[in-house]
């Protein structure tokens, strides 16, 4: 007997009988459900967490021990400077996955189903973002724990570290909107990665994540000094080490708000637009 023959009879009849359709999920409920989906994806594809864990660990170890002596006297001294920056760099980089994931979902036709459901249309975007913010948080915890093991001693204490992390996550959330746009414009997840890296490489390396601004030539200082990532790295360093960070924090929040204000309406427009 064929095992996957469709059952017949009264049971199937009941199943397929038309009933009143339920009232569609509210916007918050739909977003929460789609966030749950993002969690399930992490559960089924734990490799997704590989990038957010291994890359920062590798970067911190390499930079601390290879350049640490040369840049700051000892690796232990350097890690005080480097760690908040590695946090920034990691989060900024993994925001790309938001766009890649979205692109893959669209290409596979999953968004056709989502868009034909009677729910608040942008729910899938926000659900995916919720999942991404969770991933960013996991990465942040790992980086900070590893820093502590390597001798990172934040003078700002728990509050400083939490504030810095929150700030980095906020910026990451804002930046994700850019990759959502890219994710809807290009054809493959790989192109999302390539396109975004063109921006991300200079954005993270032409910053003061790894070395102090004052060690750079004047013309470069001008550029690096205007890079939002520099502001973010400065702000998180100062927050973690309990120093005045008000101006930088203000800058980062303004930049984040600016990105969201400009990018999210474009993203929504593209999302609603047909493909």
């Amino acid at each position, binding site marked *: 007997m064929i095992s996957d023959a469709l059952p017949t009879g009264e049971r199937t009849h009941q199943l397929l009988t038309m009933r009143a359709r339920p009232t569609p999920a509210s916007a918050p409920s739909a977003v929460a459900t789609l966030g749950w989906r993002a969690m399930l994806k992490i559960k089924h594809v734990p490799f997704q967490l590989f990038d957010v864990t291994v890359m920062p660990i590798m970067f911190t170890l390499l930079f601390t021990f290879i350049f640490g002596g040369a840049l700051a006297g000892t690796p232990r001294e350097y890690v005080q400077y480097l760690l908040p920056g590695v946090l920034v760099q990691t989060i900024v980089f993994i925001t790309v996955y938001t766009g890649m994931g979205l692109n893959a979902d669209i290409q*596979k036709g999953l968004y056709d189903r989502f868009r034909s459901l009677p729910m608040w249309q942008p729910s899938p975007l926000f659900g995916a973002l919720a999942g991404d913010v969770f991933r960013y948080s996991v990465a942040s915890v790992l980086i900070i724990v590893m820093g502590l093991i390597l001798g990172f001693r934040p003078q700002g204490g728990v509050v400083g570290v939490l504030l810095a992390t929150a700030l980095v996550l906020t910026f990451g959330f804002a930046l994700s909107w850019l990759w959502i746009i890219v994710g809807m414009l290009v054809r493959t997840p790989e192109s999302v990665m390539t396109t975004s890296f063109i921006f991300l490489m200079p954005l993270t390396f032409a910053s003061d994540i790894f070395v102090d601004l004052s060690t750079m030539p004047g013309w470069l200082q001008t550029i690096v000094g205007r890079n939002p990532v520099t502001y973010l790295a400065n702000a998180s360093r100062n927050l973690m080490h309990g120093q005045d960070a008000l101006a930088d924090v203000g800058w980062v929040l303004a930049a984040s708000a600016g990105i969201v204000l400009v990018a999210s309406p474009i993203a929504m427009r593209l999302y609603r637009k047909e493909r």
Partner: protein
Amino acid sequence: MPNAIETNGLVKRFGATRALDGVDLRIREASVYGLLGPNGAGKTTTIRILATLLRPDAGTATVLGHDVVREARAVRQQVSLTGQYASVDEDLTGYENLVLVARLLGLGWRAARDRAAELLEAFALTDAAGRQVQTYSGGMRRRIDIAASLVAIPRILFLDEPTTGLDPRSRNQVWELVRRIAAEGTTVLLTTQYLDEADRLAQRLAVIDHGRVIAEGTSRELKASVGANALHVRLASADQRERTLQVIERVLGNGVLPAADSMEVAARLENPAQAATILAALTEGGVEVAGFSVGNPSLDEVFLALTGRPADGEAPETKT
């Protein structure tokens, strides 16, 4: 009974191409309606407009009385779409996919889990419920995809090429499902390139070509428009095709239908008795016949007669 779906002069352009060039449809409620046509004819575009995923550039479409552009949400509330590619999350299990859709449709967690479990059972997927969809076979994917469209039974179900790429057994299962769904009162609009599929499932169908409806009616009506009696001669060897055509033309005068297959010759008969004359003439002429039948023309022939080319969109075959 009012029309479940009505379109008037739908036009959709993609760049310079006119995917739809004025599509008019009237589809009654509680029926299976087939959109038949080759690749690129505009079938998918039509379905995507009706499922509110695309906006028409011109013309109007109403689904259950709601305009698909202005009242998109009301339309979504009543329809489900199963696209050409499995629109489920392949990383998730079959069960999780159904719970996800159930939750998004507004069911509570418990109700969502119950519904997912009963659908998996009805679709013979209980054993695979806990496996990621990416491990499913083509037929299982199709079933989970259709199941996702039935989490809340829609008044209209859109199925875009539901059996493309399936093995014959899975295809039969999908056919059986479509019949059951329709029997329960859901209107099914399906697209297909398979003529026998449209013939088996759909009460009425529209033949679409180059973004236009070129014929509409029941499959019987469409066949009748080509000629009630069709003769099919299957040849033992392609070499004898020429000779066979000559014999048939001599008996009938004309009426030879274009055929997609070089081993076959088809012709329209004015009366079935002509078949005997042709068979006798063929035998006399030394043509080795592998098969000989008289019956309704196949939808393949309908398509050929309507468009002058085979349904797979190849260049028209020159009659010899």
